[in-house]
């Protein structure tokens, strides 16, 4: 008992250490820091290193400085990939932004079947991406498309003149944008819904008393209050879209020609680094997005902070 009593002050001292906010915060955050460092920082550092080497396979190569970047910068295939990534991101996010806004507003109102509709809208986000993309691939298939079957049987098209969703450049880009939008829309809807729900009822009441209704209320009240959270949704959407590879790779593999109309930075990096055995060059291509997305993120977070209404 005496020994126990003697030990008490020591254990108290340990507790005291953890009572200090700086220490406790560091201890609590350290697993996350270790996790991020190991799973994000490590591979990122490796990719940066590889991009300055002539590594073909494996993780070793000779230092070549900026040669990989220089060669890709002048490569038309890379230039096309950058342009396609830009189009893919901007168009799909514009659609997502407008679509999510409209759907979120509609879902805020009470109507019969609202919860089923919410569930259906969320389904694309919850479904395994590989499965849903295979379904889309068959819907767009050159020989077995259900869409084309319908068009032919409705006598709108002749069998050999049907739209080739994955084989005609503009249609192929449209198809990958449509599928990606379908996939990412639920996420934006959820964020928008959260944003709309967080607007206090008093604000709406005050706006109504002031005579603001319809578009006027949306423009002057709802939109400014929703802007910070919409910006965050947009930021996530941009990052998810610009770095996505699954949709394009499964649907078109970067095709169709000419200029591989849906080739993105991600698919081009994969083809160069993994399929062609030029890991150094592939790493340099994949890193192109990093500073761009970092700048976009900083800019949008700054904007979101500025538009916050206290």
């Amino acid at each position: 008992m005496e020994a126990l009593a003697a030990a008490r002050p020591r254990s108290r001292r340990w507790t005291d250490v953890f009572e200090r906010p700086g220490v406790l915060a560091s201890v609590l955050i350290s697993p996350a820091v270790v996790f991020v460092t190991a799973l994000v920082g490590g591979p990122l550092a490796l990719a940066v290193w590889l991009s300055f080497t002539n590594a073909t396979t494996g993780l070793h190569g000779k230092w070549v400085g900026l040669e990989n970047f220089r060669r890709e910068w002048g490569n038309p295939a890379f230039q096309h990939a950058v342009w396609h990534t830009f189009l893919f991101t901007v168009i799909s996010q514009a659609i997502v932004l407008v679509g999510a806004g409209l759907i979120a507003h509609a879902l805020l109102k009470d109507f019969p079947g609202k919860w089923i509709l919410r569930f259906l809208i969320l389904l694309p986000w919850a479904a395994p991406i590989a499965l849903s993309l295979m379904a889309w691939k068959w819907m767009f298939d050159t020989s077995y498309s259900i869409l084309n079957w319908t068009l032919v049987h409705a006598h709108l098209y002749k069998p050999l003149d049907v739209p080739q969703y994955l084989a005609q450049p503009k249609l192929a880009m449209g198809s990958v944008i449509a599928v990606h939008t379908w996939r990412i829309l639920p996420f934006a809807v959820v964020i928008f819904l959260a944003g709309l729900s967080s607007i206090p009822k008093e604000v709406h009441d005050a706006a109504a008393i002031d005579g603001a209704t319809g578009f006027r209320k949306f423009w002057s009240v709802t939109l400014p209050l929703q802007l910070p959270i919409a910006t965050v949704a947009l930021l996530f959407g941009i990052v998810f879209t610009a770095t996505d590879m699954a949709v394009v790779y499964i649907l078109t593999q970067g095709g169709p020609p000419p200029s591989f109309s849906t080739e993105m930075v991600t698919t081009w990096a994969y083809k160069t680094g993994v399929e062609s055995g030029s890991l150094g060059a592939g790493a340099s291509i994949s890193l192109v997005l990093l500073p761009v997305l970092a700048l976009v993120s900083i800019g949008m977070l700054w904007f979101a902070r500025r538009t916050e209404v206290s």
Partner: protein
Amino acid sequence: MASSDDPSRREGRYDRRELLRRAGVGAVSVGVAGSGLGQAFYGPLRFKGRWLKGDLSLITWAHFVPSFDVWLDKTWAPQWGEQNDVQVKVDHILNTLLPARAQAEVAANSGHDIFFDLAPRAQYEDNVINHNEIVQEVQRKVGKIGRVAHRATYNPKTKKYFAFSDNYVPDPVVWRHDIWNGIGMSPNTWENVRKAAPKLKAAGHPLGIGQSAELDSNMALMGFLMCFGSFVQNEKHQVTIKNKRTVEAVKFMADIYQRGETDEIFGWDPSGNNNFLYSGKGSLILNAISATRTPEDRGLPFANDLWIWPIPRGPHGRKGYEHVMGCWWIWKFSANKAAAKKFLADLEINYRQAFVASKFYNFPSFPGAVPFKQIRKLVAQDKHKPLGKYGVLTTIAQNYTTNPGYPGYTNAAFGEMFSKFVIPQMFAQVSQKKMSAQDAVNAADHDIKQIYAKWRKLGKI
């Protein structure tokens, strides 16, 4: 504070002495039992009273002819393992996932002992053993390695076999006899194909020669180029694509597209042309015999009307690549290289079983493993109509099949050019009227030369 001597606290608990005693008895029991049942104590199974010499893991594709995988997994691998006291584990993945898997295994410096892919991957030369020993062993038993396999897996510059090829797949033209017969023509020459193109399309059955970013388009178009006397590289591995013959070939194919194909040829993956044929719409594709085996297995109404012939003759004769080049390699990090080498050598030495299990899809890379005379006899026993249709495969294999990169050797630069689909791109630019034939050839020449320069600098060609 309650004491540990308190009987109410001792129930169901052991003191230190009791715990040690029981643990000791347990350990002795397990030891005695383990020494009596070696497997229980040491883990792995044993065959014929001998201890295992180790494990062997291999990864390969999910074969287009599923009966081959059944034979490999359930017959060959277990039987070979039993005879050699090795536990063999076979993994299968989709063929398109193999390149990424190979890169991952190299980066991690661990993975399967033996890796398989459908094409020679010269870029891994530094990561794999020299397979010369296996080639020599098989040559001692069944005779010389075939020309196609040798040129696809050997680097003459470094004198190294960077892979071991067990099989290659002849690449015929598959065509609907009933439809072609309806217009009174056959795809014997490329000129005939061009003439037939508008009639076939008008009959609702267009041609299906792909111009997409995928394997089959690559193979078909490079074979087509060779029929026109154009080659990507020469014997010295210098880029030779820029010439009048290529320009002529590209114009010719654009004409075929405009007369007798639809836009779908630009949007295919490797199964695209197969599905095009299976839908009943297509009148001709260039593909391996998996394209005829599937309709036979599914009992499609036109299965008996699918004929296979050698690639049509062009101004410079007939020449095509193999459709698939089965290549195995043993990583340097492989833990059981001895077993891996023996596995591959034995597989090839006994290739008759594999050939039959693949339904004549896999032709042996060492012709002596299943001589052409034997192949003709085996193929003649096939009951599918028209009877004897698979006999032509031996003619294609013997006379018209070359390695990727012919007349040179397959190398890393050719591999990168292949993976980036430069050739389908060149053809499509002209077919879609986005570029003139000369400009498209110039652009392809520029791209290919850049790729070759890089690999030459690395000392691999």
